């Protein structure tokens, strides 16, 4: 597996499959934070110690496979160009924190891009597993098996009473962050989401927009994840998250049918206008593109737009991020050039569907 494969497609192979409830839940992710017992954490460790860890992963896991996660690519972050780094960040295969630690950091990525193991991020090891649609329980089972596989060769920093010992006190215990990415256009349109977020926060869960800044959620894509990692088992954390997600799915479906009943023509107008903009615009900012993509995706889910595949939202949201645009063009671009290229790529992508 080479870096080039990861760079060429905006959409990871695992995203091509349709998971449960994928009209609303785009993907599920489980992340585990782990550390070597006898090495200081990346924030303090000497570079040579961290390089030892990086080399350990290269020696032991490069081109290895685990179950259907095959042929791990080992990529040292310092070997990447700045655009390549940005693309991997936009695909959520690495984090900006990993990029900041470029001198000593690395990542293992499975061929299907479902597993990425970040090495020397805030912790020595960050395991991430992605699943299409709503599959948290399945995800937890798989990530545990993967964790056991790594543990065959690694002595983890673990304590009976504090659990997995992480660099940040907010991750100690399970070291687990479970999250789902949800497309909630109807709850956003009716502003119901604003009332729901504080209630969800009270349950120890965090809601945030995945694209865009601050509280704004570009493309009406929200990430819901657990905040607490200590004192509850992984299964209980996932159960609690699942039940909230299930409620959100129900609310979103109800809101969609209510809007359709009460203002169907207005909704159709909005969806087809957005489709028209995406098909015809010559210059488009990321914010407008995201809103239009969200509307078109809703149109697909409601059966109004039939000739476009559902993946268009995930794919174009990633493809039209600045890093990807510049990778595509093989050069850095001004904001205006990006807006032009974004419009072109979206038009071309939609033409492929016809």
């Amino acid at each position, binding site marked *: 597996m080479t870096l080039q494969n990861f760079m060429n497609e905006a959409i990871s192979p695992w995203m091509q499959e349709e998971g449960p409830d994928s009209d609303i839940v785009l993907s599920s992710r489980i992340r585990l934070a782990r550390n070597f017992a006898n090495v200081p954490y990346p924030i303090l460790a000497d570079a040579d110690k961290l390089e030892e860890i990086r080399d350990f992963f290269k020696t032991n896991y490069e081109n290895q496979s685990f179950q259907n996660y095959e042929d791990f690519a080992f990529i040292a972050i310092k070997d990447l160009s700045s655009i390549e780094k940005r693309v991997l960040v936009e695909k959520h295969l690495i984090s900006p924190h990993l990029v900041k630690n470029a001198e000593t950091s690395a990542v293992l990525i499975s061929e299907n891009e479902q597993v990425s193991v970040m090495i020397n991020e805030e912790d020595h090891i960050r395991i991430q597993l992605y699943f299409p649609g709503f599959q948290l329980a399945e995800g937890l089972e798989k990530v545990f098996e993967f964790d056991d596989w790594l543990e065959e060769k690694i002595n983890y920093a673990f304590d009976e009473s504090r*659990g997995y010992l992480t660099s940040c006190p907010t991750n100690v215990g399970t070291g687990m962050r479970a999250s789902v990415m949800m497309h909630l256009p109807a709850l956003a349109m009716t502003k119901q989401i604003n009332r729901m977020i504080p209630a969800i926060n009270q349950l120890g869960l965090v809601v945030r927009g995945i694209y865009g800044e601050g509280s704004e959620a570009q493309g009406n894509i929200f990430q819901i994840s657990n905040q*607490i990692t200590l004192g509850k088992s992984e299964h209980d954390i996932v159960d609690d998250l699942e039940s909230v997600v299930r409620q959100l799915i129900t609310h979103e479906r109800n809101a969609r049918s209510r809007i359709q009943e009460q203002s169907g023509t207005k909704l159709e107008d909005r969806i087809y206008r957005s489709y028209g903009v995406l098909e015809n615009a010559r210059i488009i900012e990321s914010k407008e593109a995201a809103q239009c993509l969200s509307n078109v995706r809703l149109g697909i889910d409601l059966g109004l737009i039939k000739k476009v595949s559902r993946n268009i939202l995930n794919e174009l949201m990633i493809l039209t991020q600045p890093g990807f645009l510049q990778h595509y063009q093989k050069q850095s671009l001004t904001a205006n050039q990006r807006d032009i290229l974004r419009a072109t790529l979206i038009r071309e992508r939609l033409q492929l569907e016809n």
Partner: protein
Amino acid sequence: MECQECQKRPATLHFTQVINGNKKEVHVCEVCAREKGYKTYPEEGYSLHDLLSGLINFESQAMGNPQGGPFQQVKELQCPKCEMTFSEFKRVGKFGCAVCYDTFSERLDPIFRRVHSGNTKHHGKIPKRQGGNLHKRRQLENYKMELKTLIESEEFEKAAEIRDKIKALENEQDIGKEGDRP
């Protein structure tokens, strides 16, 4: 604290940058963080501000001297492995190594309670290989809790079943008290 970039807005993101092995503290506001490319991944961008200001308040309450007399200088806790001190930990908001947890142990409960809704003890996964006897001891604890609730609800038949399971597990082999600590 003021943002070190614009010196206008309050600093809400605090972290340490290591450049050529030199640690440098960074305190910036959201706006400058974004502009200077400091902005972390949304998920990792947990603003430590609330957490840390909470910690520091808590610490001064816990350590404060109610009489208002001269403050007793307590010897600063320092990790023997990574040399991080407790005040450094509070400032940075990160542990330096696994041994820090032992070193600062007695002062961590209030912090964990704040961050994890009152919890201080792990109840999740145990490493498969390293966990050794711990797995069995956890299972025993669970059975004993189950037994207690069954007896309370007077479900004696089920309770007897659990009691047999406990006996069988206890007889299997000697269960060390200290487990297999890494």
